[in-house]
């Protein structure tokens, strides 16, 4: 992945400084290798440690998936949606409907993601007309509307909700393990998918749109298309997460699956970890997981701390923990941009 380029100084001086433009590095290779080993180790957890480790890891993987998806939306494309819980809910209900029609619920996760993305298409036509804070509140309205519609639909149980069918054939151990693997796959696909997507031209375009839509448009970036793609992919991802949540709880109820808490979590993880990096949301997910394990017994105080940390991070360290670390030590484990170095 090393590309050589000769960049001359602007005046006609013949002093051409040879530079190397590179993206990948030895550290990145080592880290990717380490990640692959970690994934293999995590994949065999149901055979090794089993039950006690699965439940917390499922929570962590769900966090990682949600954070990576929200990062694509807000961190790269500048779309601060606080209504992603709308698509988590749609995914959960889609999984119920799929399972109710006799399709295997685990295969149903993919269908649920598809349904969420399809539902997001007409929604995007409305909300993407707005930007910034107005976009944010419009997404809140959409989530609230979806929740009311679910509450008013007797076909999906109305206010009381419905339990997910089709899982009676599995033993508890097997079901737990299958949910564990599915969550691992969704988290992996979210991280790797976002990474591969932003390494393409899309990533450059999205960051241009996120930082200045006018400048991006005048440089030939198709702003509408980039925002649409980011919105649909993130909605599909949220649908998959919603399906997983339905599988874990085995019950789909409007107030739980449309809970705005999911959006709060996404915001927090991405902010703390570092917006617009691949590593940041994973770190943010670990931080939220640790906070939740230690502080969730304090109830409302836990959320006061979450909100306070979000404000402090935005004002004092807008690039998050990973931003601080990479700035200080020059780390880049999963590089997105290019690096220009002078040749020795």
């Amino acid at each position: 992945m090393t590309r050589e380029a000769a960049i001359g100084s602007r005046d006609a001086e013949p002093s051409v400084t040879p530079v190397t433009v590179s993206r990948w590095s030895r550290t990145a290779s080592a880290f990717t290798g380490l990640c692959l080993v970690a994934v293999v180790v995590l994949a065999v957890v149901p055979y090794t440690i089993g039950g006690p480790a699965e439940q917390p890891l499922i929570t962590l993987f769900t966090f990682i998936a949600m954070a990576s998806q929200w990062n694509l939306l807000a961190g790269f494309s500048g779309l601060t949606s606080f209504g992603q819980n709308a698509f988590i809910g749609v995914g959960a209900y889609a999984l119920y409907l799929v399972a109710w029609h006799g399709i295997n619920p685990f295969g149903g996760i993919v269908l649920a993601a598809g349904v969420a993305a399809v539902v997001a298409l007409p929604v995007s036509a409305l909300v993407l007309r707005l930007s910034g804070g107005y976009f944010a509140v419009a997404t809140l309205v959409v989530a609230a509307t979806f929740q009311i519609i679910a509450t008013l639909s007797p076909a999906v149980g109305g206010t009381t909700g419905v339990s997910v069918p089709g899982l009676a054939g599995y033993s508890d151990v097997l079901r737990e393990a299958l949910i564990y693997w599915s969550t691992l796959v969704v988290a992996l696909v979210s991280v790797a998918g976002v990474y591969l997507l932003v390494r393409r031209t899309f990533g450059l375009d999205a960051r241009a749109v996120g930082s200045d839509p006018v400048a991006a448009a005048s440089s030939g970036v198709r702003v509408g298309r980039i925002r649409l793609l980011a919105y649909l992919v993130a909605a599909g991802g949220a649908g998959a997460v919603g399906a997983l949540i339905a599988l874990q709880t085995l019950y789909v109820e409007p107030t739980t699956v449309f809970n705005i808490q999911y959006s709060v979590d996404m915001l927090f993880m991405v902010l703390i970890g570092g917006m617009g990096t691949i590593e940041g949301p994973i770190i943010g997910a670990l931080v939220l997981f640790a906070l939740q394990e230690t502080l969730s017994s304090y109830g409302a105080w836990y959320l006061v701390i979450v909100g306070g940390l979000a404000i402090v991070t935005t004002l004092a360290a807008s690039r998050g923990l990973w931003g601080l670390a990479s700035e200080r030590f020059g780390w880049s484990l999963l590089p997105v941009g290019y690096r220009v170095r002078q040749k020795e």
Partner: protein
Amino acid sequence: MNWVNSVIQGMLLGGQYALIACGLSLTFGVMRIVNLAHGDLAVCGAYLGLVLSSAFGVPVWVTLPLLLPVAFAAGLALQVLLFGRALRHGVLAPVLVTFGLSIMIENLLQVAATSDPRGLNGGALALASFHIGSSITVSWLFLTAFLTACGVLSALQLTLSFTSWGRQVRATSDDLDTARLVGVRVRPVFATVAGIAVATAALAGVFIGTIGTFDPLTGTNVLIFAFEAVVIGGIGSLWGTLVGGMALGVTQVVVGEVNQAYAVLAVNLLFLAVLTVRPGGLFTSHQAVRELQGEGAPG
């Protein structure tokens, strides 16, 4: 006659929505901040009214001369400590900071006041009503809320149009850099605007708390209604906000007359419909629409 009654009640209800929304509209118009904690600040106003009126044992109206200055000061402090700083960190930061603030306020209220629904002591005014004809009953409280909203909006409009401070606000809103160049001191302008926004929100919160009940999580719904009123009426138009609020109120009451469960859904659908057909709202300038869509992002 029943329908006439619903429409009248809806229009009166809309006044309250406009009262909450004018602060949101003003903050966006001048500072370009959509304050996601605006609804929660209104609920804070209601809780402050509760504390003061039960401490002194008086109807909540008596506490307003104390409550409104406190809210104004809170707005100043928020602008100086949070919003002003957030504005220096680009366009995303205010959205993230105000959402963080919203989470903090909601949960601090839960810690301090539990999640039990509360109501405010509105004194004799809360129960009084008069009749028009045989089938229309108008509550004095609803009428007061509506007239207060009209009064606040008129006062704001007149101040913005005819005073030196109003000219400074309009200049800042039109072009921040040029306003600075011609000698407008922008920070005090921003701080007073934030103070007025929070004070009007607190006043609206007092009406919300007297007319119905509130709990720590009411703020999000209040924000959504205020936001819908602003968008339906048109960004940057105070009278548009009043019309937007009344459109929401009438929709809510008329649909609620048929089936209460569909009232809020109908309001949200009205908002989404306006967004589809006239994304700029009913009364709005082209410049406001461009800014709303992020094409005229401020420097």
